[in-house]
Structures are given as C-alpha cells and as structure tokens.
C-alpha cells in the first residue's frame, strides 16, 4: 500500500485516502469538434503502459479533494516526485 505525499495538504497519507486517475498530462483537445474520430479515440482510450517511470494523476479523494501528479516507477512502485497540476515533472525517463 502506497504512502503518498499530498502536495496540497503537505503531508504523507495512506493510499486509502486517494484515488488513482490514470496517466497524467492528457489535455482535452482545445477544439473537440474539429478532431477526427481517430484523434478523439486516441484522446479517449489510448494510454501508455510503461515499464519504469510513469506520470500519473491522483486525487486526494478522502482529504482535500485536490488532483495532483505523481511520477512513479511501475516496477519498484517508488514514488519519485509529486507535483501540482499545471507543473511539469522533473524526473523523466531517458529519451522523453
């Protein structure tokens, strides 16, 4: 069970307080109506499943209700960093 630092509360809390919300940094297309079905399908359904560093979104559901991002190693489950929505990760996989 993870021990997650909420950047809004400024504290580590148990995973039970959080919901995982999948891959981070997927922006809603600015003009959905001009997207092709393929582009919209990619926005909706296609996600990375990396072995190693993964940037993902979590929400402190049973706490402050704020969303934030986590860089996590999907092999070791280490959380490398936590950063707020709108910020960029400082830990990134080589080649990214």
């Amino acid at each position: 069970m993870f021990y997650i630092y909420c950047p809004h509360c400024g504290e580590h809390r148990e995973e039970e307080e959080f919901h995982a919300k999948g891959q981070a940094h997927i922006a809603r297309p600015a003009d959905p109506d001009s997207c092709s079905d393929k582009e919209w399908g990619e926005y909706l359904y296609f996600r990375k499943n990396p072995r190693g560093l993964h940037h993902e979104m979590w929400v402190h559901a049973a706490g402050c209700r704020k969303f934030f991002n986590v860089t996590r190693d999907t092999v070791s489950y280490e959380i490398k960093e936590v950063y707020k929505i709108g910020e960029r990760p400082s830990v990134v996989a080589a080649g990214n």
Partner: protein
Amino acid sequence: MSQKNRLASGGRIDRSKPLRFKYNGREYQGYQGDTLASALLANGVDVIGRSFKYSRPRGIVAAGAEEPNAVLQLGATEATQVPNVRATQQELFGGLVSSATNGWPNADMDLMSYVGKVGGRMMPPGFYYKTFMYPQSMWETYEKFIRKAAGLGRSPLENDPDTYDKINHHCDVMIVGAGPAGLAAALVAARSGARVILADEQNEFGGSLLHSREKINGRPAANWVAETVAELEKHPEVLLLPRSTVNGYHDHNFLTIHQRCTDHVADQAPKGQVRQRMHRVRANWVVLATGAHERPLVYGNNDVPGCMVASAVSTYINRYGVVPGNELVLMTTNDYAYQTALDWADAGRKVVAIVDTRQNPKGARIEEARKRGLNVITGSAVIEVQGSKRVSGVSVAPIDARGDKVTGSVQRLSCDTVASSGGWSPVIHLSCHTGSRPEWRDDIIGFVPGKTVQRQLTAGGINGTYSLRKVLEEGARTGAQAAESAGFADAAKGIALPLSEEVQEGPAMALFHIPHTKPTARAPKQFVDFQNDVTASGIELATREGFESIEHVKRYTAMGFGTDQGKLGNINGMAIAAKSLNQTIPQTGTTIFRPNYTPITFGAIAGRDCGELFDVKRYSAMHRWHVEHGALFEDVGNWKRPWYFPKAGESMQDALDRECKATRESVGILDASTLGKIDIQGKDAREFLARVYTNAWAKLGVGKCRYGLMCGEDGMVFDDGVTSCLAENHFLMTTTTGGAARVLEWLELYHQTEWPEMEVYFNTVTDQWATMTISGPNSRKLLAELTDIDLDGDSFKFMDWRQGKVAGVPARVFRISFTGELSYEINVQANYGLYVWEKLFEHGAKFNLTPYGTETMHVLRAEKGFIIAGQDTDGSVTPIDLGMSWCVSNNKPFSYIGKRGMAREDCNRPNRKQLVGLKAKDPKKVIPEGSQAVDDPKQPLPMKMLGHVTSSYYSANLGHSIAMGMIRDGHNRMGETVYYPQADGSVIEAEICSPIFLDPKGERQNV
C-alpha cells in the same frame, strides 16, 4: 503420564507448572514454557500426521515457523476450531485440544497409505495437470480421493466467539526479529531516542540465544537477553511485540504484524481481551534481522519420523529439556551441526555416529567431538533410513568429494533419530515481498536479500553472518545506521559491543541431495518438500519433461506451494533442479516468496470489521420512523433506504400495489434524502453546468429547476438529476444516490485539470439536508396546511422552487416530479427532518398519506418512462439511444462533455440498441429484468439477441405489467413483437411501445 523424553533439568520450561492437554483424543502432560511440539516429543509421540499425496507417516522435523509436518487442528469446541496451526509455534496451555489434520481413519493407522504405496506411481508431478488434460471422466474419481486426503485442517462451522483488533503505527525504526542481531540493533536505536518497534514471532525474545550454549560478555547468552529486554522496556519510545509475526512487507515500508495476544492462554480469549491483533506499521527505516533456517539434507526415506533438522534437535534439548530419541546419527556438511551431537551426548543419550560428508573436516567443534570419543565418519553420508513409523536404522556409505556418487560399501547403523544439516538458508522472505530478487552467495551457500528500493537494512543471519560475535556487531552497527538515517544523529556514538568468543570453523560443503547406490528414480523416496510430497526424483522428472524455468518446476511439482511456503525445501529443490539442468544455482535462480510469511487467521484480517461493523451504514434523518413503521430496507450505496412498507399480512406485491395506488389517487411520501446534493457557487457556475450537462443552462432563472443528463467524453450517459438556480451564481445539483461521490469528483477533475481559470466551487451537502417528496393529486392540499409558501399553480409552477417555512421550519420546496404526479420536494435542515416528516403525517391522515419506498418509486417512474441512470443505462447508451434528444443541445458555444463523443460514427450508425417500452402480451406476466429479446424464439442456438430488459414491474395503476428495455433499432420498431426466451424454456411475447405508459402529455404534474 510419563514424559519419557523429558530431561530432569534444564531448559526454559517450568517443571512446577504441569499442563494437561489432548492430542487425537488422548491426554498428555507438558509444562509451562513448552510448545505443543516439544510437549508431544516429550511424550514420545512420533507420528503427527500423514503426508499429503502418499499418506506416509510424518513426524516433527523442525522447531519453528519452518515446520512442514506438524500442522495441526486446534480447538476444544466447534466455534474455536483453528486449522493450520504449526505445533512448533503453538505455546502449550492447560486444556489445549489438538488433532492431526490428515490421516484417515487416523494418523497412526492410515488406510490411505496403502493407496499411497500402491498408487504412488499414479501420482507423479504434474498429476493434476495430467489428470485435468486426459479423460475428463476420471477427474471425479480422483477428486474424491484428493479432497479427502489433501486437507490441512478444517474451518469451524460456528461463529468465532473471539474478538480481533487492528492498530496503526508509525515508527522511526522497525526491527523484525529479536534474536542477537535484532536485540543489538534495537538497543542502539532505542538509546538514540528513535521510536522503535521490535517484533518477534516467538513468545520470548532472544531467537537462537534461547537454545544457545554460547556466552556473551563471559556469561550465559540468556543473561544478556534478559538485561537487554529489561533496558528496552524502560525506553518510552520502544514498543516490544513478542508473539508477533511480521507477515508482510509491503510497498513504501508498510508492514503487517500478526500478534497472537491470547492464543497461549486458553482455547478462547479471556473475557474482555482480544485473541489476535493486526498491527499496520508505516516505518521510516526497517531492519530485517530474521535469521536463518537450517536446511535438512535430502536422502532416502528422509521423511520417516525421527528424521529431524539438526538445530531443531538442539533446540528441543536446550530450550525445552526434551531429547527426542535415544540413539542419534548426525549427518552434516558443516561444523556448526556438530553442536547437536555434543548436546545429545550432554543429555546423556547415545551418539551412534557423526557422518560428515566432507573428506577431511577441521574445526574446533570437530576436535571437541573427537576428544569426547564420538564416532566421526568422514567423507560419507546417510544414504537411506530404515523404519516406517520411527527410524530404526540408517545406511551409511562413503561418497566422492563432490557428493555426486556413492564410492564404497554400505554399512548399517542402528539408531532411532537422524539429525541432518545441509547448512543455513537466510530468511529472506520479507525482503522478497517488496519485489527484491535474492542473490546467491557461494561463500555462505545461500541466497541473501538483493537490491531493494525500500528504506531497508539487514543484519545477522539474513546476511549469511552466523558467528555470534559478528552477528552482535552487525546488529549494533545496523541499528545505529537505521536510527541515524531516520534522523537520530548520534546513534552510533558510544556503542558498547557485547562480546562473544569466536569459534573456529572449517569450510562447509555445498551439498543438498545425497547420492544413493541406485539412481534417484529407483532409490527410496528422497523428499524435498514434505508438505507437498515433492521428491528429488519428481524434480528431476520435471526437468526431463522440459521444465527449465524454476518457476515452472515449482508449479509443475507443487514445490513450495504448501502452507510452509517451502521454507525447508525450496533451496534444496532449486539445487536439485540446477544440477539436473547442468546449471549453477544462480543460473537457475530462485522462486521468491509472497505474503504471508506464515498463515494468518481470517479473524485477524477482519479485525472488528465484521457483523454490525462490516461496512459503513448511512441513515437518513427519518430512519427511526421507517423502522418503527415496518419498512424493509434496501442498500443503495452505503445508504439504508426504505424498500417498501408492508402492512400486516401483505405480500410485497400487495404492498407495492397499495403504495402505488395511494400515491396516484391521493398522496404518497418518499424519503429522498439520499439523493446526492452538490452546492455549486461562483461567477462561472452557470457556464460550468453548461459544459458538464448535455442541455442548455444559459437561461435558467433564479427560482427555476431543470433536469440534466451528464455524459462522459465518450458520449455515454453516466448520471442525471435536477439542478436548481438558487441565485445568479449559486446552484444546487442533485445526483443519483449511488453516483454522488463520483459526480463530485468528476466536477472537480474538470475544474482542476481542464478549466482552472473558471471561478466555481463545489461542496457536497447531501448530509446537510433531509428531503421528503410528497407526490399525488392531494399533495398541494397537504402542503398548504403546513407552509407559508404560495402554492398557487400559476405562480409556483412545475419546475419552480420556493424558499419558505414548512411546519415552521425554514425549507426549500422544489416542484419537481419523478412520479409524473403533482409533487413537492421539501428540503429542510437534516436535524429538523424527522419533525417535519411527522408533522406531514399529522396532517396527512385525512388524505391517506402513504409512505412508499424505492420499489414503488421505481414502478411509478417506470409508468412515466423516466430512466434510472445505472439501471436503464450501462455506460454504452447515449441520450439519443434513450430517446432523450430533447435533453441534448447543439447550440451551446462550448463543446460540452459528451458532444464530440456522441458525434462519433459509431454513435450515429443505424441499428444501435435503443430504449423502448415493452408490453407483455400476457398482461399479468412480468418479464424478468435482464431477459434477452430475440425476433424468432425457434431459431437455432446461439440466438441473435436484440437487447435486454432493463426495468420491469407490475403496474397496479394500469392493471398490467410494464417494462423498459434495449432493442436494436427499437425506435423504428414500435408495435412490433419480440420474444424473451426464459431459462425454464418458456417464452414471453412482448410488444414494443413507447416507454411512457401513463399520461403521455404530462397533464397530471402540471395542475
């Protein structure tokens, strides 16, 4: 009451406190301080069970968590039955009742053993797979046999009378294992001021020192243990947990500890005490000081009772004052095990021989053994044991220097006990739990913990450090390192290392499998995993059949799959597989271990979360009234909602018919408090609503309400509800009962991640309001008696809301309707809810005000064709599919959530499933929900299915059954007939119709 194997003195037992206990129906005596295993051995009980596959008699082989055979059933009554208890870990108490778990009719005289002897070759490794594969008809025959024979105990048939607990901790340093390394680490860490938890599975701290004859600071090791524990107890930040097994090491230094609080006291916990407690620890740093398990050697008939692990024999002698036999043969690959023979001789029993597999061993203990005249046979091995229910002798033969083959003639020795030692395996289980791969070390002939990402350190036996002096040193150093890493800077200062003598030892031999004069397949069975009856020849067969990965060998042979997780056998098995594959052990690799380290009771896992406390229950403010008026309840989310209110003698359908008619004819009342309520404020609140709902919100005025559909980005409906404009920048959104939390999170997601520039705030107010809906033609008259709000139909119209007082209480009254009747939804502060509800009934008697529950609500809304999101929708349904295109706007400037999704090609193709009404041809027949529609019920299987029934009821108001369901292209098939084949072979015929069965023009709600 003889304890024929009990020594007159010595050990950590209290001979002044005899305890009576039962095993397999017979009464025995042991002492305070015994384990069940030591007490059984003291009484000369050799056979404690039958083996799983071959039904061979088995005895106790070890003295701790690694014991594979002595897995017993405990419990004096049906309710207190506990399966899977290792006798080596169960402390004895007066009145303990135990029995063997496999063996039929009993362990001592087992009929199945004949099957085992005859049928042994019928059950090679892969037996299950092969049997599943080949004539399937055979499986039933085998299954009976296997199920009967394969038990390791049974669950109680009655409820557990005991209470279990959970507790959470945070600490700076968590130390697992209180042997010499753990104690030394704890002492140093504790002195630094760190918050320390020290847990050990045994009843006393000390680990190997409890049976060791070594000295620390020149005095018996037990003295140092006592002093250390005494000091630790004085540190306020130290928590000592004996009888506590760290069973799981999870991500981010989270550990679960299973503490047996009163299992050593009685069959049932004393009144007011818990039986077991689960500690959930989040540790800053973890020190694993879990020690090592001794490996037995693999030789012919090595499972005959009387064959034991060498160190276990020493433990029984030194700690429990029990010598488990009279004449010992010791086989060893190393110096350390000589101590067992010395202990045996000191106990006054006969050492027949020490058989050392090494050609020319040299070391202090060997010298001592020789000096004392013990018969040391070098360059040889015990290749085979004689005896069935107890060892009667051994065959000893010279072997070559590599241990590959027998090189000379066989001699027979008479004995009743064989102790063997193949060296030590570090207890790396916990480090494996976190995903760390173990690493092989040739110098210690064992796997040690590999690289880890946890804040974890290791000390002592787990590192392959075995000399007491070095273990103490490593423990102290590691304790200091952990404390310093956790922020206690001066932990390393002034460590006074306990001193112990270094015993000079020669190198050990890497030998696992003892050769026989015959090839392995023809030699007497050489067991690797006792609990699953895996033999050396079985492993060799697996590799011959093409299993090369050790993970596959494990699964094919079932090695390590028992409740002991192969603590004794795994390394031997891997070594045998490696040799058979012509590989080194590191090339073959090792399987790893998962939680739990030892079996854990369901009670400890559940803790208090059972019975009444199993799940959260939410009650509305009027709950007490519902209970008093005979409501039956339905779980919706965590809410307890009234389902219906049967009167005496009424069936469910009777009650529903009465509730439905009363509502349509006069007035009914529903507790709607559970609907999700979200308060939305901010200057952009209105625009935000327009983006998350499919319909228009720009023009909704203050005092007005509007129904909205919420879709995902894929265009599929996921929730609905009415939102009301309370003020220009202030709205109240309602959601489905079950969807409340999900919708709030959805709104937050879009606000925080996509449109943070919008000024809007959300807050849940579900619990703050009690909501009661009065519905029916007399609802206005009833409300008029209690409110100051002007209810005139021309000023307070359908889909308006008003602020005022109801029964003198400030209220918001919404004129919205889920029944199609004239309805008022009265919202008051929750703590006034019951009062207002009761006032309504005071005034409602003359109108026959009738309470109704969720079931009548469902019928009434279905009569009107109103959907329930989640019942009539399933995540694959667009608003258009529902026939609700009136609720979808194409004129909104912003591309709201769901718009683009609905525009996908697939959402606009013909032949989509669409929601329609369904009328059974037989008006009394209610089509079961979930039934699948077909065009032709006589078509061959598999039939072409058109869609399923989503809602179906009997409508007393209409006098016939009604249903809603999905039908392919249903909107274009009005009036056509479809068929619903049922599981019983019957077919229900139905006509496709509009889902609005009653008052299609909506006149009843607009009065």
